[in-house]
């Protein structure tokens, strides 16, 4: 038999398929398909990342994610409370930077862990897993969107904090680097927690714990902490975002240190997002 091209086969199909009814009880046809069919296109990384990012951003508009507001209120509340305790100087800088980065931890770490935990538990990952999209696009798109959600809250908190404690807003532009880099690190951790936790409650719990750690270890001035606690603080990636921001409030900030802090965030971001991507792959095919 002459092998026919796919197009010819399709054209013959039109006349044969619709009306016909198969004869009953026909035995299974054993011959396998001769040539593997051409596969559909793969979605490329960048366009699909953009598509996921856009879809996730629109979720915030639809769902209004009320917790985004809670994140901001929480940080503003902490600033007001700490005003009575902290005089100014280095401590005030820590408090303002810590509160601002706390918004990032709340949204990128906590909410993203919850989101992925629920998506996985409810079978929502099946949707992505049956599309030819690179795992990294799904993880990075969602992480990017959640990092973006933190922008308004972080900026509002930082500006409010500066006003409250009389700190200069001159170098607040550094948030343009702090938010994406701390966002990458924390969103990567959040995504990894959500995708690795065996149950959604555990994902929520891990996200909450991470956020609490960022609150307790990031907002309080480190000088008063005992040694072991300070060690824990150094392990937390949000700390480096806090430090980077805090350094820029002083006169003549040491930009090299700021750069090092941000580089740590970036490195943690790369590693945690890679882990999250691996976790996604694992969760998608069981």
């Amino acid at each position, binding site marked *: 038999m002459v092998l026919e091209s796919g197009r010819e086969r399709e054209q013959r199909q039109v006349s044969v398929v619709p009306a016909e009814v198969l004869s009953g009880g026909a035995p299974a046809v054993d011959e396998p398909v001769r040539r593997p069919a051409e596969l559909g296109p793969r979605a490329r990384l960048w366009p699909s990342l953009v598509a996921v990012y856009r*879809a996730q951003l629109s979720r915030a508009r639809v769902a209004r994610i009320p917790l985004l507001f809670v994140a901001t209120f929480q940080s503003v509340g902490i600033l007001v409370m700490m005003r009575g305790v902290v005089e100014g100087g280095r401590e005030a800088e820590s408090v303002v930077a810590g509160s601002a980065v706390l918004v990032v931890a709340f949204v990128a770490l906590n909410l993203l862990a919850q989101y992925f935990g629920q998506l996985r538990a409810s079978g*929502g990952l099946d949707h992505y897993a*049956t599309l*030819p999209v690179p795992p990294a696009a799904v993880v990075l798109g969602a992480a990017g969107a959640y990092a973006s959600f933190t922008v308004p809250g972080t900026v509002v908190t930082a500006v409010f904090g500066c006003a409250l404690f009389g700190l200069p807003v001159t170098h607040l532009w550094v948030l343009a680097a702090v938010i994406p880099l701390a966002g990458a690190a924390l969103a990567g951790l959040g995504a990894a927690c959500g995708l690795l936790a065996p149950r959604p409650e555990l994902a929520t719990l891990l996200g909450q714990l991470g956020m609490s750690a960022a609150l307790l270890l990031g907002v309080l001035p480190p000088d008063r902490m005992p040694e072991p606690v300070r060690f824990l603080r150094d392990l937390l990636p949000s700390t480096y975002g806090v430090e980077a921001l805090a350094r820029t409030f002083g006169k003549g900030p040491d930009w090299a240190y700021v750069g090092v802090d941000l580089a740590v965030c970036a490195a943690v971001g790369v590693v945690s997002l890679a882990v999250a991507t691996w976790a996604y792959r694992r969760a998608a095919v069981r």
Partner: protein
Amino acid sequence: MAPAVRPRDEVVCAVRGLTKTYPAVRGRRGTPATPEVRAIDDVRLDIRRGEIFGLLGPNGAGKSTLVRQLTGLMRPDTGSVEILGHDIVRHPERAARILAYLGQESTALDELTVSLAAETTGRLRGLDVRRARSERDAVLDELGLTAIAGRPLKKLSGGQRRLACFAAALVGERPLLVLDEPTTGMDPVARRAVWSAVDRRRAEHGTTVLLVTHNVIEAETVLDRVAVLDQGRIIACDTPAGLKEQVAGEVRVELVWRERAPLDVPEVAGLRERAAESGRRWTLRLAPEEARAVVATVTGGAAFAALDDFTLATPSLEDVYLALGGAARQGLVRT
């Protein structure tokens, strides 16, 4: 007229010796232990090009498990799955480039608008922005969703949401559609939209469809062939008409009593053990002459006063389904 080797005899999806056992889970405080479950047991299937192939079976029969293995979402313990010449067990990621899958869950799309859900799905299926948008518009129009295109899925009715998910599955054409109960919750208009969209793709591109369904009426009207699944095994696989022939010698009698069955009438009491009871309704599958006798009994004499309604019907796929699948549990007569 038909060619000797018809294109539709070409096997699109070949499944051999497929087996899946969910491991036992040891009980913990509050959660009882669950034993090992053999969800799929040595399944063999051939789905041919251009056909609508159905999987029918009671709850827990293993339909979703089987479909998840075919779509590369779950690794089988043993066995092979070949779709259009590709080994899906070894290369599960290829499934996404061959088939479109409509799962039972919509959580990934719930917070998107209908329009964005369809467009994003198309883009993730590898279409560029322009193609994704034009296909999105065409599909939404075809399914009558244009009017609600701007509304988020979460705020739609169950049937509308299902239709929107179906629309997303159609953006970015695929030679194989795997649909897990696509018409759940849909009204007749939406159902018709689904089946005519499927038919169009079948006529124009020779699209093959694998359909999981509970709805026997739907199974009878839209399926070319159907496999009946029970406890992980395929117990029958044929055309709906062919399956119905297996119970062709029988007639279904349904009796609805006003309040309760008049068990004081000996003939009625005698029927009881052969009837599937559901509330006031008794369903019996009988040989034609037996059925005539039963109808004579209940429409005359003492039983008639207690009778609310009765029907006599030729067997449907439902009877096949019950006879083959649910028979043991429901105490129905086996053929």
